[in-house]
Structure formats: C-alpha cells, structure tokens
C-alpha cells in the first residue's frame, strides 16, 4: 500500500497564528498523517506548538520564540532559523532547524529528536529529560545545564560551562569545549557509546564518524551531601 500525502498550505500573511495552530493541532489529533506547509512565518512566535499526533509540517522561513514547543509525534521542519526556546518540552517526534537556533533550544525535552543544522546558542538542552539533540554547528555557554537524561551531540565546538550540574544525560562533542561546568568531566568512550552515536548521527543525517567525538558526563559528586564539607556551609 502506498500512502499519498496531501499538502495543505497555511499562509501566515493572511491567516492568524491562532487559526494556523488550531488547524495543525486538530489535524495532528485526528491522526490525519497529512502534510502542512506554513508560508510567510516572518519570525512569528509559537508556530506549530502543541502538536499531538503524526503530522508533517514545513515552516517556509524563520520562526520566532517557542517554535514547535511540546511536540509529540509530529515532524516539524523550519526552513530558516528559530528563535529562543525551540522544541521546548518536546515529548517525541522530530524537529529540524535548517538554520541556527537561539538560546535554550530543546529545553526540558523529554523525547524525540531535535536536529539543528546550524549553530545553537546558549543554554542548549538545559534541563533536558530524555530528548536527543544533534547540533551540526556549535553550541553556546551553559549548554546541558542540569541535563538529566538523553543525548546531546555537537559536531562543532561547545562554549563555556558545558554540562554544569549535570545528571545522567550524555554529551558528545567533536570539536573543542571552552570549559566544563561544575561536576562535568570527560568520560571514556566505550563501544556502546560509539554504537549509540552512530545511530544518532545517521538519524540526523550528520556527516561525522563516532570515533571523532569525546564523551562528557556527570562525575556524580554533587549527588550527595559530602560530610567532609560540612564546615564550609
């Protein structure tokens, strides 16, 4: 059986954001599995948020704050750059940014793949809780701050204080790391990590070999109160 995708164009030059989002949300909820194109996004906020079901959405230009937030199952592609908080609290599905992403991309994400083809700025993956984030360029300072679970893969360089107060998220960086945050250390790359990286790089269509990366993770020294430091408090 072949599936034919019917493509609907929603033009934001003539359609209000609320209308655009409610049509997308209704289609996702109805498990319509159809394709939508958002014309003239012009940097609008909160484009294609709260999609709860399989749906293909292509945003034909740059988006503003909170694009594709809370995404579940849908596949959202931005053919431009995304403003702060893209794919915030994403649950599943795929969000692809062809250009750059601004600060706190993928914040608190629980699952799915956030694929950023350009750079991501500060606080990428802050408090991530299971999402996979692949950044083809560089990431800014304080990325993966308090990251709990999931994988952050960076093909370029990382800024200051990577992985500060990190829990169990895994961080893979191919380029340089300007500095590591508190309790974040470099860790041994074992076969299972190379295997995992290969899967993530393939999924993201990233031209890099797993062997080129270094792994960083939590030293787990902040997990418990240290009685030897009692005098310092």
């Amino acid at each position, binding site marked *: 059986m072949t599936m034919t995708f019917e493509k609907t164009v929603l033009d934001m030059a003539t359609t209000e954001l609320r209308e655009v989002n409610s049509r997308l949300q209704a289609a996702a909820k109805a498990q319509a599995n159809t394709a939508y194109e958002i014309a003239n996004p012009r940097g609008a906020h909160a484009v294609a948020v709260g999609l709860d079901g399989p749906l293909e959405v292509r945003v034909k*230009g*740059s988006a*503003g704050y909170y694009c594709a937030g809370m995404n579940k199952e849908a596949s959202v592609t931005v053919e431009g*750059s995304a*403003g702060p908080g893209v794919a915030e609290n994403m649950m599943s599905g795929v969000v692809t940014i062809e*250009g750059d992403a601004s600060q706190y991309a993928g914040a608190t994400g629980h699952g799915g793949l956030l694929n950023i083809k350009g750079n991501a*700025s500060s606080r990428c993956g802050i408090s991530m809780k299971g999402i996979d984030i692949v950044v083809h360029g560089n990431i800014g300072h304080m990325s993966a701050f308090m990251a709990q679970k999931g994988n952050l893969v960076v093909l370029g360089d990382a800024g200051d204080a990577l992985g500060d107060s990190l829990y169990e998220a895994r961080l893979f960086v191919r380029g340089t790391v300007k500095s590591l945050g508190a309790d974040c250390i470099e860790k041994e790359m074992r076969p299972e990590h190379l295997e995992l990286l290969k899967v993530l790089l393939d999924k993201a269509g990233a031209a890099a070999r797993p062997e080129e990366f270094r792994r960083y993770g939590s030293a787990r020294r902040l997990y418990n109160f240290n009685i030897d430091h009692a005098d310092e408090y």
Partner: protein
Amino acid sequence: MCGIVGLFLKQEALRPRLGDLLTDMLITMTDRGPDSAGIAIYGDEAEGMVKITVQSDRPAEAFADLDAAICAAVDAPVTIKVVDTHAVLTLPAAVEKAAIAELEAQGLRIMGSGASMEIYKEVGLPKDVAARFGLRAMGGSHGIGHTRMATESAVTTMGAHPFSTADDQCLVHNGSLSNHNQMRRRLAKKGVFTRSENDTEVGAAYISSRIAEGASLGEALEGTIEDLDGFFTFVTGTKTGFGVVRDPIACKPAVMAETEDYVAFASEYRAFADLPGIETARVWEPEPATVYFWER
C-alpha cells in the same frame, strides 16, 4: 523586556528610505515595549554646525520664538525645525555649550546634540510616536530605535531611549543594570552627570566618559562587560557607526543581519521581515561578551 532595532546603511542609495525601514522595524517590536518609543537618526550635517534636539510638553509656547531667543543669547545664527513636541536647533558648534545652558534655563529638555544626530522619543505606542514625528519620511546613514517596557524608572519622555550623553553618541538598552547607582556616583565624582534616574543613561554616560578619556568605541564597549553589572544588550550609535555588545549571560535576545546594502540589528528576527533582501542575508546571533561595531 524592551525592543531594539538598528540599521546601518552601506549604500548611499538607501539613505532616503532609512526612516521608512526603521519605522516598520520599530512598530514590529511594539509588543516588547508598548509604553514609549524613540529613535536616534544620523542625517545631514553642515560644516561647523551642530544640531540640538529639545523637547517640551508645551511646544506651541516653548518653540514660538525660541530661535530668536537663543540667537540673542549666544549671538550667533540659529535655525529651528519644529517636529511635534521636539525641536531641532541648528547653530554654530562654537556656541553649543552656551546654547544648551540657555535652553535648559528655559526649562526645555535636551534630547541630544551633534553634527548629524537627531533624537525623537515620547511616551506612547511606537506607531503613534512614529506618526507624530513623521519618522517614515526621515533619511540618513544609520539609525537606532527602541520600544520600552519600563522596569528601572518611570514611564516619561526622559525615561525613554535612546539616551545621549555626548555629541553624536547614543545608547539603547534591553535589560537592567544593577550597579547603576554606584556607577552614577563614580561618574559624578569625575564630573560626568546624568539627567534622569534611568539605569541606561548611566550606561550611556559610562561609554561617553570612556571615549572622552581617549578610549575607542570598541574599548569603551569592552569596558561595559567589566564595569557594568546586570543584564544588557546594548546598541550604541556614533556619528560614523554603530556597535553592539551583550553581557556574558546574554539572556536578552539579539539577532543581526548583513547584506551588501546594510547591517541590521533587532531583538527578534520578526523586525527584519520587511527588509529588502532579507531572504538571502547573513543572519546570526551576536555572541555574549563580544563587541561588534561597524564604521564608515
């Protein structure tokens, strides 16, 4: 939250469109700052002359014979252009100080002065402020605009941005400074005074005083990272260029775009949507604690 826009033209041909392009950018930033708006525009200049922009709440009265009064006081030719609540007086640079003292003595508020810079700012929605001043019709080489959502001082004309603390220099700011009172006292000890209670004006005065002491614009902006505490995305204008700097935390948004025709700055990409050639422009986010500036 506040909105910032800036446009620095690289092509002479676009000069007549500067005000029009900046006005659209400014209005797009209304929901980041609906309580006041302002613009500094760098336009035509005449050899040896200076322009002083003043504001009055009673412009009809205050501006009626102002040119004649200042002419008599400083014994030099003065021309006046009245634009709503603002007036731009053009007079020989040699008598600038005396003219400003006389204007202040008459109870007028000084918005700024310089060879090419004019500043227009008022309380109200950006679209209303732009219409009152006829911003769309203004030409120039570069300009900076601000839409304000007040946090650190009252919603008044004097609290609106841009702030100018030296000839042809101005500053707009998104964020809030936490050591502005201490810095205000430090500057006052050096004889540098501000006109309002606003935190941003202290930032502007800091940059001006550094430049007056011999620093370049770049060095003065570098200094803000060391000496000013708080959140800031600053955009500053000078006669020949404009500069951008963000604090090291960089939580206040910033985006830039560059083509062969212009360099543009905005708090959000939305403000760029109507710029010519934006589809193929290089668009990027300025790095934290990094100084950028363009000069002609």
